[in-house]
């Protein structure tokens, strides 16, 4: 029972081959664009890798790059096959090549869908990675003299300015961390000693934030220190003051940014996937239609094209049988090459 049979007269075959050749060129460009988008996404993720703890999310751009490259190759092959299908004498040489080619192409194309699904599924992982990375960045903000951490201050400052955000979840994250290095604290002053003694870990905590949290859109000069103390500043109330600092947390800002990027790339990837599947299905029809022509005297006869010769279940069973035969052939091949002394060893795989 043939799957999705279509009749192909000669003209229709020719039209199919020509249209498919053109489409394969379009798909080649589409594959190149997918590759470019993968590269772009990877560079964007790499730029902020200092505030990311794990690299799990990198699998999405990696998949896009790999599939983009592979699809360029697949479409070149498809174009060649289309060109040769118009000449019945050249077509037979593709006969053994095409079935594994189809399996490989379908697998590669489905990876595009996998990439799209992963870009949504890995969002919690991205958020978690950013949470830990930002927490470390804020914790090591003051360690500008420790090798390996000296860049954290600059990274966090630039990040907060560029993404217009402050702290991990919001600006209060800075109140829980000592972000001023001991090198710049006067330990003879009473205020410093009081603050350091006021908590268990002996940290200098204050209700202040670094300058990079300041919002340029605020109508008044930035208030960074004594943020929770209304009396420290004239005409200031921290509960109603919204423009002084950035209200957003950097984790949320970065997640939004990357999700926005992936949502923009999503439709292009989907389009590429649909285009590629269309090409593969049409190529399968062309191949099966041409197989009816091979060996015939008159090349202009009408033939049938189909996706699978038998039903899905039967094809799967057949493939399983074929695989078993190939494996057995490999084992038997090994056994016959071995000398008679080691025959008991050769018996073993058969009984395993």
């Amino acid at each position, binding site marked *: 029972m043939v799957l999705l049979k279509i009749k192909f007269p000669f003209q229709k075959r020719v039209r199919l081959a020509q249209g498919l050749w053109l489409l394969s060129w379009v798909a080649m460009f589409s594959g190149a664009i997918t590759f470019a988008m993968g590269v772009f996404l990877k560079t964007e993720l790499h730029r902020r890798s200092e505030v990311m703890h794990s690299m799990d999310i990198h699998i999405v751009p990696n998949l896009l790059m790999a599939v983009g490259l592979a699809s360029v190759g697949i479409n070149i092959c498809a174009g060649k096959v289309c060109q040769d299908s118009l000449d019945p004498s050249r077509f037979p040489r593709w006969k053994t090549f095409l079935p594994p080619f189809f399996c490989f192409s379908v697998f590669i194309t489905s990876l595009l869908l996998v990439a799209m699904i992963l870009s949504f599924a890995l969002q919690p992982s991205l958020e978690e990675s950013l949470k830990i990375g930002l927490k470390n960045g804020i914790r090591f903000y003051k360690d500008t003299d420790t090798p390996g951490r000296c860049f954290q201050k*600059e990274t966090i*400052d630039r990040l907060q300015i560029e993404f217009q955000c402050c702290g991990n979840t919001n600006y209060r994250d800075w109140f829980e961390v000592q972000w*001023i290095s001991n090198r*710049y604290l006067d330990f003879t002053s009473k205020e410093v000693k009081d603050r350091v003694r006021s908590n268990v870990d002996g940290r200098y905590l204050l209700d202040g934030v670094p300058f990079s949290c300041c919002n*340029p859109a605020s109508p008044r000069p*930035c208030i960074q220190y004594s943020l929770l103390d209304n009396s420290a500043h004239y*005409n200031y109330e921290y509960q109603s003051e919204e423009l002084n600092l950035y209200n957003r947390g950097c984790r949320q800002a970065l997640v939004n940014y990357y999700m926005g990027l992936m949502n923009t790339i999503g439709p292009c990837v989907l389009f590429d996937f649909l285009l590629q599947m269309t090409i593969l299905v049409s190529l399968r029809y062309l191949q099966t239609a041409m197989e009816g022509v091979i060996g015939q005297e008159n090349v202009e006869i009408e033939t049938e094209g189909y996706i699978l010769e038998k039903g899905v279940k039967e094809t799967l069973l057949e493939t399983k049988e074929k695989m078993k035969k190939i494996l057995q052939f490999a084992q038997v091949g090994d056994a016959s090459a071995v000398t008679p002394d080691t025959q008991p060893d050769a018996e073993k795989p058969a009984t395993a």
Partner: protein
Amino acid sequence: MAVLPIKFTKTKRDRLAQVLWVLNWISVVTGIILFILGIFLKVEINKRQDLMAERQLQSVPNMLIAVGLIACMINFLGGKICYDCVDTNKFLRWKLVMLPYIICTFFFTLSVLVGALMCYSMHGQLEEALTVGLRDAMRYYKDTDTPGRCFLKRTVDLLQIQFQCCGNKGYRDWFQIQWVSNRYLDMSQREVVDRLRSNVEGKYLMDGVPFSCCNVNSPRPCIQYQITNNSAHFNYDYQTEELNLWMRGCHQALLDYYTNIMHSIGLTVLIIWLFELSVLTGVRYLQTSLENVLRQGDPECESDGWLLENSFVETARSNFNIIKHLGKFNQISSNGDPNIDKPSTAHYGPDNVPLKPLPTAS
């Protein structure tokens, strides 16, 4: 004695016409590039319009835009002409147009050169505009409640962050103006009143700068207030501290930025000018060689092409005479030159004749 004559065989003429056709199309593309460069410059200047005082800065990008558009049109026409020049019959169509076309294009290339030179000369106007503009922007930094100036604080802050600069010439410019609005000053405090009284104009001046002057590369948290007071901060010496604030002035930063853009654009326009000039020379050679072919009568023969038929001096003299005669054409001449005083053959009736009964029209 012709200027720079070259012999052209038929194949050489045809090759020249084809090459010029391609080059004219490339010139159309360069015309589009000029147009895009003009628009880019216009956008860049408009982006920072708040920081520049009113000067004639818009003339340069407008010139580039106009020149780019005209270049497209002229080269499109030139391409059409060169395409037709391969066939001597079609050349006859363009014969009368070609010389005026070449003269127009020559003057147009002069305007391209003027455009390129204007790019380099804009430097002086830009410097003046920036000095005044930045000074005013800093002065109105605190006026976030005055309509028309309320955005200046944000503009200056974003400028200092993006260009990594502070103040007009340096951070000390902020010490001389009041950048904290009176709305946020507690007039009942002694310190505030003292500061206000300490200068003639009653301005609240202090040795502090806005947060946007802070340098992100500094190893210590930013010191914005009491900058010149070493004892106010632990382990701090303002004379040796270089990483705390941005050291560059915004005037210098913006000037460098715009000068870079202008120099790149000027260089590109110069290269385009040279290209246009070479295309024009080719078209001139093509025109003169085809005219000589027509003069000799045989389309397949070899002909000479040149830039000018006679030497520079003679050509200048003859052109000057033509212009003189053109001027004389407007005056009533009693020289008896038959070409000018040829009587009109239209029957309007004779002049200066006493009234007679009207003859019937003939």
